[in-house]
């Protein structure tokens, strides 16, 4: 059975990399804020990945992946130009709502940098003044600065160690932007839950509409398992079909973070087993070479 072909790959660091996947129909349909579910091989698990970019002319979608668990590490090893993904389904989720905001801050923290790009571009195309605040650990991990600069009016880089841009996390950058621009209408924040929570607190009570893209554990992505359920206000929503965008001020981030860890024992065991297998493989390779 033919899979979904990888036509480009770029490595940003030893943990994050970019894959461009050929899927003309998906590229045609993809909208900012949507995601896909991917299976690497037929024994694989289903994982959600935000669509970081789509090229309707080339017929490709772009995924930026952080190798943190067994599946993403295996993808980092095996996905090269010319190889296939076993399953790619989407675009999933309700597309981001790009309203009539005049000044928007798009915040991407770490693995959230790539997913916020389509939204930044969409706001810019809709005529808003877009300020991007992008957070990385250090200058060696910075990527897509030029891509954002091409569509945004301002780009503010933040690094934990201060080696590039502002020293601090994206919340530091956000505080500076809000201080300099009291007329910000909307904030979009994507990144680790603890970061999105901090951004929500930074804008609470200031009349700034704040949207986050939630990343719970998913299985089907089509609304039939409830694994991705999140607490929004007093109710429960499924991130895959009711989101993934939600009003940040209504999200229960603590609940999201607690539930994100529910399969951690299994995930850690799988990663250990994978690392062991890789090590043995390498040793065997060295032994063969000698």
């Amino acid at each position, binding site marked *: 059975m033919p899979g979904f072909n990888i036509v480009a790959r770029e490595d940003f660091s030893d943990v994050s990399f970019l894959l461009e996947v050929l899927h003309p129909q998906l590229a045609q349909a993809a909208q900012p804020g949507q995601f896909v579910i991917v299976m690497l091989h037929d024994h694989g698990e289903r994982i959600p990945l935000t669509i970081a970019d789509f090229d309707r002319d080339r017929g490709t979608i772009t995924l930026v992946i952080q190798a943190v668990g067994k599946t993403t590490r295996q993808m980092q090893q095996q996905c090269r130009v010319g190889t296939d993904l076993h*399953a790619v*389904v989407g675009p999933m989720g309700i597309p981001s709502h790009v309203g009539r905001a005049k000044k928007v801050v798009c915040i991407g923290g770490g693995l959230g940098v790539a997913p916020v790009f389509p939204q930044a571009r969409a706001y810019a195309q809709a005529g808003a003044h877009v300020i991007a605040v992008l957070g990385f650990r250090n200058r060696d991990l910075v990527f897509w600065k030029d891509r954002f600069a091409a569509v945004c009016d301002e780009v503010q880089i933040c690094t934990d160690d201060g080696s590039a841009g502002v020293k601090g996390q994206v919340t530091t950058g956000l505080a500076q932007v809000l201080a300099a621009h009291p007329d910000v209408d909307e904030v979009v924040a994507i990144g680790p839950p603890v970061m999105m929570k901090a951004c929500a607190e930074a804008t609470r009570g200031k009349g700034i509409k704040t949207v986050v893209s939630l990343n719970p554990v998913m299985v089907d992505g089509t609304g039939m398992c409830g694994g991705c359920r999140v607490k929004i206000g007093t109710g429960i929503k499924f991130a895959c079909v009711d989101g993934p965008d939600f009003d940040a001020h209504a999200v229960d981030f603590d609940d999201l973070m607690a539930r994100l860890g529910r399969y951690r024992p299994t995930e850690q065991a799988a990663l250990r087993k994978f690392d062991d297998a890789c090590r043995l493989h390498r040793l065997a390779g060295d032994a063969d070479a000698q």
Partner: protein
Amino acid sequence: MAAKKRTIRTIPQARTPMREQPPLERAHNFKEVALGYSPAEALVEADRCLQCPDEPCVRGCPVGIDIPAFIAKITEKHYRGAYEVITDTNLLPSVCGRVCPQESQCEGVCTVGDTLEPVAIGRLERFVGDMAIDQKWVNRPYIEKNGLRVGIIGSGPAGMACAADMAKAGCEVIVYEAFQEPGGVLKYGIPDFRLPNDVVDVEIDKLRQLGVAFECNTLVGRLFTIEQMLTQMGFHAVFIGTGAGYPSFMGIPGESLNGVLSANELLTRCNLMHGRDFPDFDTPLQPGKRVAVIGAGNTAMDALRVSLRLGADQVVCLYRRSRSEAPARAEEIHHAEQEGVEFHWLTNPVEVLGDSGKRVRAIRCQKMELGEADSSGRRRPLPIAGSEFEVECDSVVYAIGTNANPIIGQTARLKLDKRGYIETDAKLATSMAGVYAGGDIVTGAATVIEAMGAGRKAAREMKSYLGLRDTMAVYEPEVAHAARRFGFAPEEHGYSRVRVASSSSP
């Protein structure tokens, strides 16, 4: 020589038992529980059918299979003939024979069942279906292509049944499935020990042989819309069979604790994603050692018995009504009891309790008693004050019902009812011309056979819409039974061989 006259006293009195895996052994494997009839056993059971003139079984079947006819074929050892009779109406005898709730359908009204145990119609259907698979019988009718394109959304039982009929009518049929494998609830929901996925794959293959194309990894509504299917992709008619998989939760405190999940999530991880074979398969499962399942429908029974097989030491069912109101198939409750599931009837959960690590440690419940009947006709459960107690567990599985899948409703301008299901008229037509819908997405969660019946009914209406000949119509004038004299139709009453005896003649 005249056939032996069959009466209630001359037929085998006892229902032929079906060999099953012993309960304690099968509670640790995913192989089939019920092992099927041998030909000898099937013949004995088929002999129990009285071939009664009333035929209540046919009326009891949601799709009206000609049950006496296929049983007669079995008696004649014309097994292929039996398969032909069944598949005239029901595409998947191997599936329905295993999962239909026969006790409330055909077997529930069987004439023999008035006096003895009813004829095991379901087991006979399964026998025929399995023989067809074993012997690789394929009914490949002559199909004349008509150049019309039909799209089916969802590869579950409703979509499969509709696809078969439209393919036989000569249409080009494409079935779209969001998952990476077709089959729908037959694959991800019903576990292998009830319905092996291999059986489902064989049936899907038969559809491919009829010319049906399956495109997986396709999320209709998002990848392309139904409107696009009709206006840009060249489809002339569309059938929606997307199901009602959106699981319900209770909204009680503690539902967010780690270890609480819906039965759909548990079953999908275990069945479709082979989580039980971790780490050969990557999907995590983390089954509990003491599992509490809320609900007593078929999904709950599946969740309970799957948990046993995943290595739980204790599996408990919590249901707010009593055993007789439990919606699950009788055989499943019986099998679950045999396998060691503990049932707490008239028990309603009120709070899930966690430990310091936010993991489930127990579930607090209260006892219920049954009051007056509510709008569904079932007696309403009422809490008994002061009856609260805790059940220790490390996993809580919700199997209390589902809602409509929202994606088609979000992405198509179709009229929905107030609960989010697709509104259709009596002919299963939606508010969009050329678009039909059937199965759980219209009725709410129901059975496989009802979904298949809806798929076939929609196919009939779609053929009418497309201007194709209706092959299901029987072109015989309807004559009421009472109008017949000794079996002769009214137009033959004048003939010399028919005279109505007057009451005054000697």
